[in-house]
């Protein structure tokens, strides 16, 4: 490594201060946890670290499109969007987990959450396939630990192990896909890739590009729990505690879909004026169509049969992955369909509503092992019931909650993408939403219309309640004022009329690409 590159690496540190703060705080927590055991202290410390990271983001080059000179990270509006979203999401998880982990595990638990937050932020900022992979692993590896920490019974350990094995498998598939992309373009830098790949347009490697993309897509489909990569979700969610299930339902989905958009943008040029590989793109569009339809339909149909609320929400999260995939597919089908914007908007809303729902389940602890256990919650715990009801209405997609806008935007994107296939998919989405209403509203009905069986034997958990209530309030608030998030998600998508990223490709890379 020559001194110039070293200098540039040091220069890019400036862009990574929020992530560095999070990781440094995580180290403090790991070490501190060995000498001092207090869940309140370490939870509060984690919140402070998240707050500091947010401030660092705020004062940093937020919002400007800056790329580090070696091109590892790109500070695009997308990175900002993901950064804020992941910080907020992890903050809610910290609140939900506040009283859910034993004192002697608290430091490790929250330290892992901080690393996960840093990883998610890096996914949004990644401008290199290797960094993207590392960032995804930065989410996965602490997740294994987090799954293992709160409780050490057989079902929890089984859940952690299942997730670990299948997650490793998915990472391998993802890496395999990346290797093809590298082989085709000679670079792992995404900006360079988006220049180098189009040069292969005439060389008859279409099937290899398609293979690479479909492998990457499959690897990430595991993270977002799309059918047929979803099998782990119900077992793991049911086996673990609600706060971990909420984490699994929110963060990997966020990272997975953002990663999907980043790779698809670089490899196929989603918003480029002219498609690089029109045939590859149409095939991948079809793959996405199948993934979306299967995820929505199978997720919802199986959710209908569930009696355990966590398992039910697991299938519901599979169905939601399907809804978001409709947006991804719409973005693939037509550049100007607004699919990417819809995906980002959906992710923001979905993160809040799913964390809120799992947060309330966490508050109820062991007294919510079956949907029937929630009977009469409106009378015994009116605030819990209200927060859960709001999140469930939002998951259903009913006004006055933001879930309505989220579904509407995805629907409109699919409709606007033009083809008959995607219009059919839009209608399938609407039908699925109707089926889903049955099991969501049933829970609300049970909470509000049935008389309570026994008083839930749980102490009031103030931080957890704050987290869940914040999610519910967000969901209602965004219904009334959707404009700001919509604008942010709009800006986060590279528009067709401007070059995807401001950075120029190093000449050596261009030469390399042309050589091939």
């Amino acid at each position, binding site marked *: 490594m020559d001194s110039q590159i070293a200098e540039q690496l040091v220069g890019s540190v400036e862009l990574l201060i929020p992530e560095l703060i999070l990781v440094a705080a995580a180290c403090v927590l790991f070490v501190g946890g060995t000498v001092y055991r207090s869940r309140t202290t370490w939870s509060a410390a984690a919140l402070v670290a998240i707050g500091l990271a947010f401030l660092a983001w705020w004062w940093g080059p937020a919002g400007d499109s800056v790329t580090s000179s070696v091109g590892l990270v790109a500070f695009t509006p997308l990175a900002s969007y993901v950064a804020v979203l992941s910080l907020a999401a992890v903050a809610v998880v910290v609140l939900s987990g506040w009283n859910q982990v034993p004192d002697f595990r608290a430091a490790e638990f929250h330290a892992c959450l901080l690393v996960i937050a840093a990883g998610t932020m890096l996914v949004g900022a990644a401008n290199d396939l290797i960094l993207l992979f590392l960032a995804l692993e930065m989410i996965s590896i602490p997740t294994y630990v987090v799954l293992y920490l709160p409780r050490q019974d057989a079902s929890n350990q089984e859940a952690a*192990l*299942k997730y670990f*094995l*299948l997650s490793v*498998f998915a990472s391998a*598939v993802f890496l395999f896909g990346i290797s093809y992309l590298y082989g085709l373009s000679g670079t792992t830098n995404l900006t360079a890739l988006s220049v180098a790949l189009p040069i292969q347009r005439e060389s008859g490697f*279409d*099937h290899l*590009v*398609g*293979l690479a*993309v*479909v*492998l990457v897509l*499959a690897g990430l489909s*595991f993270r977002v729990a799309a*059918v*047929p*990569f979803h*099998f*782990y979700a*119900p*077992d793991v969610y049911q086996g673990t505690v609600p706060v971990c299930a909420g984490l699994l339902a929110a963060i990997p989905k966020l990272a997975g879909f953002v990663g999907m958009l980043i790779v698809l943008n670089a490899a196929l040029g989603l918003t480029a004026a002219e498609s690089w590989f029109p*045939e*590859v793109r149409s*095939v*991948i569009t079809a*793959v996405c169509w*199948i993934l979306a339809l299967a995820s929505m339909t*199978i997720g*919802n*149909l*199986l959710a*209908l*049969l569930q009696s355990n609320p966590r398992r039910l929400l697991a299938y519901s999260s599979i169905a939601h992955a399907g809804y978001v995939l409709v947006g991804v597919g719409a973005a693939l089908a037509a550049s100007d369909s*607004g699919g990417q914007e819809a995906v980002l908007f959906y992710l923001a809303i979905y993160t809040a509503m799913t964390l809120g729902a799992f947060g309330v389940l966490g508050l109820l602890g062991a007294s919510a092992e079956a949907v029937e256990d929630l009977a009469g919650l409106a009378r015994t715990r009116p605030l819990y019931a209200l927060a859960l009801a709001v999140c469930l209405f939002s998951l259903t997609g009913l006004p006055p909650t933001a879930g309505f*806008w989220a579904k509407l935007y995805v629907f*409109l994107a699919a409709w606007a993408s033009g083809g008959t296939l995607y219009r059919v998919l839009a209608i399938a989405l609407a039908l699925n939403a109707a*089926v889903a209403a*049955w099991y969501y509203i049933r829970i609300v009905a049970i909470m509000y219309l049935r008389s309570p069986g026994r008083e839930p034997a749980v102490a009031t958990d103030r931080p957890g309640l704050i987290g869940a209530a914040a999610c519910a309030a967000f969901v209602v608030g965004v219904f009334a004022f*959707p*404009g700001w998030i*919509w604008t942010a998600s*709009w800006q986060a998508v590279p528009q067709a009329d401007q070059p995807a990223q401001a950075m120029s490709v190093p000449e050596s890379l261009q030469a390399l690409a042309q050589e091939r």
Partner: protein
Amino acid sequence: MSDLDVALRIVPALPLIGSIITAFLGHRLLGSKSHLPVIVGLAGSVLFSLMVLVEAPGSGRISTSYDFIDLGNLHINVVLRADALTAMMLVTVNLVGLLVAVYSRGYMAGDSGYARYFAELGLFVFSMSMLVLSSNFLLLYVFWEAVGLCSYLLIGFWYERPSAAAAARKAFLVNRIGDCGFLLGLMLMWTTFGTLDYDGVFSRVDQADPATLTAICLLLFTGAVGKSAQFPLHVWLPDAMEGPSPVSALIHAATMVTAGVYLVARSTPLFVASPTAQLIVAGIGGFTALLAALIALTQFDLKRVLAYSTVSQLGLMFLALGAAAGQPKLAEFAVIAAVFHLFTHAFFKALLFLAAGSVMHAMGDVIDMRRFGGLRRLLPWTHALFLIGALALAGVVPLAGFWSKDEILSAVREASHGPYGGMLTICYYAAVLTTFLTAFYTFRAYFLTFWGEERIPEEAHGHAHESGLVMLAPMGVLAIGAALTGLFFGPTHLFGEYLAKTPIFPVLGDEHGLDWTVLLTGTLAAVLGIGLSGWFYVLNPGLPERLRRGLRGLYELSYNRFYLDELYGVLFVGPATVLSNVCRLFDQYIVDGVVDLVGWVPSALGRVFQPPQNGLVQYYALVTTIGLAVFVIFVVLTLRG
């Protein structure tokens, strides 16, 4: 955003915020302080609506819009606008709302639904403010329904009482009939003009053909008939008195029921273009005024007398609204007369209801005038305040009712010289007769309640007492309004000049001086009514009873409200019950069967997909790999081939 933009948004926002706070925190946290958020919010709204009152008419109108959704080709904006008419309504709604809320602080004290009451009250004022602030018919309709909902909730406030629950349901259902017409009117308006915006519709009135225009007007009027309790949909309002008295004062006297008048006044440009519709409005208004006054003559429930009186006074307003048929030049004067009466009526009728509530409060919730009497010594303040309200309602110089009623009579009389003179002349005499009857029944109620020997029902448990200051003070403010607003705004033409700045009046009318004939006729009718009532109920207490025997048939007709409720029962409710039973059976056996089938299909399908989820991680990996392989083969084969 200018200050006025902010003010326009704050006026409805404050009661809403107060309502939300009370709704969520009232029951558990605020307890007996639940009124605070709503009262504070309303006080703020009054200040800001006064600001709107001062500023709005200067530039014709002001408006502010809130972009609810703005993306691609989907724009949903909520536009609020205020002109002179709106500003006047806003002040009335918020001021009376504030006074009623303060009064309720005393009246509702100790009720188990205290917080719920104030939350609903705040929601009502929000909805009513939004109704008058709307800039298009659709938004107007939305809040038209919202005030209907609040009315339903508040009539049925004591829902444990079967009579209150039934009254709430009746009010809601009868209103639905009118709303149905309103909605059809909106649809027709949309297909005719392509817009529902006030400015857009009014600027395209000439493009519509007269028959369509008449249809639109009549459909809008149907909505007004329901909301403002005009014949034949007036039957819900007297029953609505099952709600708490302050609610009757605010919603069923001063504000919500005048929404119909507001709607027709707001649509003046449409109605002016359709003399037929105007004539029907005037006819229905005049007929209702007389009918309700006749019914009010024999009722013994104090609040019902006032309710019929409200129906009757609203009838007079509609009479004025329609009076300009065939004489567009008269429209402005007539409409302003109607709105002026709306304004003064809000004060004295709210006052009367609050005073009736005060009586009820003292009498242990008894409201039948046969069971109490001679209360003027026991309730001196209530007595004085009721008297002011009664004089204002009867139309005695120089109280508020006199001036506004005089304007209505003048407008109708002037209209009777126009092309539809015959019918409007009849209406004029009906209005004069109504004035006489109004004075009579108002003072009948007054004398029965406050004169004669002192009688107190046993429900009062011997602790009948004058209401506290918290109830008397708002009544005092209303009494000042009832006494002075007419004198201040009427002869000085301040009100007319102010309202004329509303940009909806396209034709500037001529100056209208005082019509002495009308003035004297009206006053004479009022004085005669009061005198006759005094002769009947104070000087010769036996006379009414003898008269009742002599005119048994007529008495029964009036006492039983012309059997209209029974008639509706036979004509509409009966067949509807039969039909609904048929529907219920159809629903139970056929629809439910189909629904169950549809519901069964997804879960049956779900069972098909269930087996792979067997908990074995190797198996999961295998299925995943197969899935991946299928995708890979599909992609590679497609792209190669």
